[in-house]
């Protein structure tokens, strides 16, 4: 079991460029999440998905897009990168539960993104 994998590990973008952060999990989890982590700010939820074909916005969705065509993959798309998107991005997954999120989340190793 590889768990949750993310690529790339590091990336530098120029302002206005676009990129896709990849996330794959091999645990057959229904729920998947994208977070960003800024120093001293904890984790902020960008988007989440409760199953293939279903996505929803989190706290900070502006400037990002997601898709969930399969159970395993949950890519995050950055369009028109801005310096404010400089952050560490984490993907996570968890088993779905009927009503609520009481199953623990498994995290990937993160992608460190710098926008210059």
């Amino acid at each position, binding site marked *: 079991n590889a768990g949750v994998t993310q690529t790339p590990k590091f990336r530098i973008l120029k302002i206005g460029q676009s990129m896709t952060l990849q996330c794959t999990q091999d645990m057959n989890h229904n*729920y998947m999440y994208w977070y960003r982590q800024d120093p001293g*700010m*904890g984790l902020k939820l960008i988007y989440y998905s409760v199953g293939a074909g279903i996505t929803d916005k989190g706290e900070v969705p502006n400037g990002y897009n997601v898709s969930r065509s399969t159970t395993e993959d949950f890519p995050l798309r950055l369009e028109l990168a801005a310096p404010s998107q400089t952050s560490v991005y*984490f993907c996570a997954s968890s088993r779905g539960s009927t*009503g*609520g*999120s009481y199953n*623990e989340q498994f995290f990937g*190793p993160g992608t460190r993104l710098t926008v210059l």
Partner: protein
Amino acid sequence: AQSVAQPEDQVNVAEGNPLTVKCTYSVSGNPYLFWYVQYPNRGLQFLLKYITGDNLVKGSYGFEAEFNKSQTSFHLKKPSALVSDSALYFCAVTAGNNRKLIWGLGTSLAVNP
């Protein structure tokens, strides 16, 4: 609105001493509470959770946490700290049918040899 607070940005403790990392929460309904640990340049790892039942929850690496409903707290504890416990610790909460966790800002634990 749901919220979680970790009142200490940093906790320092000597190796071998007991440690406590504090967490308080505010939710409507019965809470689901979690602790995660993040080592430098790594993703978060699950430590333990409280869903229902016994108020004292035991988790990975010798950590435990006590759910206190009257004080709306879920403090993380360990009887004897190790230098290798030095990391960033996050408390998180959700409740009811909410599919999202609310995260604390994290507490940096430094265990000094």
